[in-house]
């Protein structure tokens, strides 16, 4: 996909500027939350950080304004996506850092990247007493990152609709719900906002049933819904979902994070009347099979260690954690240390595989994605048939994904290539964790969690880990969320520039 060294740097600045400006505009929501909650110090911080983000965004736009009509290639489109995410992280971390709830700016950047990539691992101090304004910003970052912030900004704010598909693909959402990329992105947002209303309503009542006061039930309902739908994993309390001690809250959150992990093209089909797609689609079939098999493995491991001796506990702890891992959400209803000390190797193996498999393509989820797992499984089946049957009987390799699709060699190659890239990234993360002094099991679990943008933690991620490991995890979350190509395009640009200088 990276065709050539990128030459049109000015329009890239222009589009990144638009994204940053739209992030500054979004930051007004937590500002208003702070004002309504009478959090005056936080309100002043937001006034300052909104101004900084707006100035940087406007500056970038001005640099590229003259060249905004230049047609961008694939490499440049991908650089807009990866560059905006990187600069966005640095600017969105300002309110976090200035709030005083983080020990360093690196920790703030870590949480922003964790939010934007819908991962959910955290470095924040004293989470239970965070201001409403800061919490709102955490969940908005997750919600924006899940649907795609670059796509949001560029589809609603630019007229250059022809180039938008390149940004859209650069952000890891390379499917078209509609023939045109702008309508596709708008539909993604309509579906998300429709579910935001339904989900908040359900979580609000689940919160009331769990005994929360009305205002808290409403705020926590919005936040937990945003986090569940985006498969994010952030929660307003340090005990995560365990804080609520409510079966209704857990079941409602499972429903929404499972739905959030589905492909937007699937949602669009079902919501426009093609309901049979749910049982025919390769991703739902693949997800149902892998979820069942991996839960069997995990439940067997938990039974072997006699961790949860009754059915309700096995379901509420074992299934909840596994579903959260497989959809790459990261909500936890157990403590991190319980995973390491109680669960045992078999159950942790099931969890690691689930985290790496992940949810659906073109969804808010991370991991290999069900579509690629389906394609790879289908390829093995096809090759086996080709060996067993006479050549004339084996024609073409087909899958069902919205329509019946004949698989080309390049689609199969691309699936294998991206899965290989995920496995290599997972291996690098594991080695990084071990080099920081953690045992293999813990390092592999945490690496699978950041590679799959999951957010479950076995206890490694904390402000006390070495800065290099924090930076490695930030890099892994970023590259895995954007599915490698756009970050590689950015890297190729800088390598090209260095070569030019050296030549």
């Amino acid at each position, binding site marked *: 996909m990276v065709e050539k060294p990128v030459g049109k740097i000015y329009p890239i600045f222009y589009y990144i500027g638009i994204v940053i400006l739209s992030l500054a505009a979004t930051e007004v929501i937590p500002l208003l939350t702070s004002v309504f909650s009478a959090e005056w110090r936080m309100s002043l911080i937001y006034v300052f950080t909104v101004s900084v983000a707006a100035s940087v965004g406007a500056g970038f736009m001005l640099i590229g304004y003259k060249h905004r009509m230049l047609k961008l290639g694939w490499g440049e489109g991908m650089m807009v996506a990866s560059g905006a995410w990187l600069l966005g992280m640095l600017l969105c971390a300002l309110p976090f850092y200035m709030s005083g709830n983080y020990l360093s700016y690196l920790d703030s950047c870590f949480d922003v990247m964790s939010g934007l990539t819908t991962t959910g691992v955290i470095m924040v101090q004293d989470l239970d007493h965070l201001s409403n304004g800061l919490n709102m910003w955490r969940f908005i970052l997750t919600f924006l990152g899940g649907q795609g912030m670059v796509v949001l900004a560029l589809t609603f704010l630019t007229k250059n609709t022809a180039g938008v598909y390149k940004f859209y693909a650069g952000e890891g959402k390379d499917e078209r719900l509609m023939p045109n990329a702008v309508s596709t992105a708008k539909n993604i947002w309509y579906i998300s906002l429709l579910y935001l209303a339904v989900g908040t309503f359900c979580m609000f009542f689940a919160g009331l049933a769990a005994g929360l006061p009305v205002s808290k039930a409403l705020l926590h309902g919005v936040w937990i819904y945003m986090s569940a739908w985006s498969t994010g994993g952030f929660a307003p309390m340090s005990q995560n979902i365990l804080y609520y001690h409510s079966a209704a809250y857990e079941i409602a959150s499972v*429903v929404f994070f499972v739905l959030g992990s589905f492909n937007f093209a699937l*949602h669009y089909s079902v*919501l*426009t009347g093609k309901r049979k797609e749910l049982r025919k689609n390769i991703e739902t079939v693949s997800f149902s099979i892998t979820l069942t098999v991996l839960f069997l493995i995990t439940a067997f491991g938990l039974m072997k260690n006699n961790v949860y001796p009754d059915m309700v506990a096995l379901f509420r702890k074992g*299934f909840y954690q596994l579903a959260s891992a497989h959809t790459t959400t990261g909500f936890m209803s157990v403590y991190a240390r319980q995973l390491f000390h109680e669960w045992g190797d078999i159950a942790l193996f099931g969890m690691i595989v689930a985290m790496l498999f992940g949810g659906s393509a073109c969804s808010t989820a991370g991991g290999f994605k069900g579509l690629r797992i389906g394609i790879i499984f289908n390829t093995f089946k096809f090759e086996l048939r080709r060996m067993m049957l006479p050549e004339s009987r084996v024609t073409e390799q087909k899958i069902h994904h919205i329509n019946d699709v004949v698989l080309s060699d390049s689609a199969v190659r691309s699936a294998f290539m991206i899965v290989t890239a995920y496995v290599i990234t997972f291996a690098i993360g594991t080695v990084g964790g071990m080099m920081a002094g953690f045992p293999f099991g813990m390092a592999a679990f945490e690496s699978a969690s950041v590679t799959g943008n999951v957010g479950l933690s076995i206890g490694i991620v904390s402000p006390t880990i070495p800065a290099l490991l924090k930076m490695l995890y930030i890099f892994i979350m970023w590259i895995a969320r954007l599915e490698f190509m756009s970050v590689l395009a950015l890297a190729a640009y800088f390598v090209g520039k260095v070569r030019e200088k050296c030549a």
Partner: protein
Amino acid sequence: MNKYIGKTALGIIVEVFFSALLIGMGLAVSLLIIW
């Protein structure tokens, strides 16, 4: 318009039902393993 709203609402119900089926699978496997 009503037809469109009806189709969308039915779509949401079907999706939630499918998600509930997966939760049911989790319950069934828990029961199976405990037995």
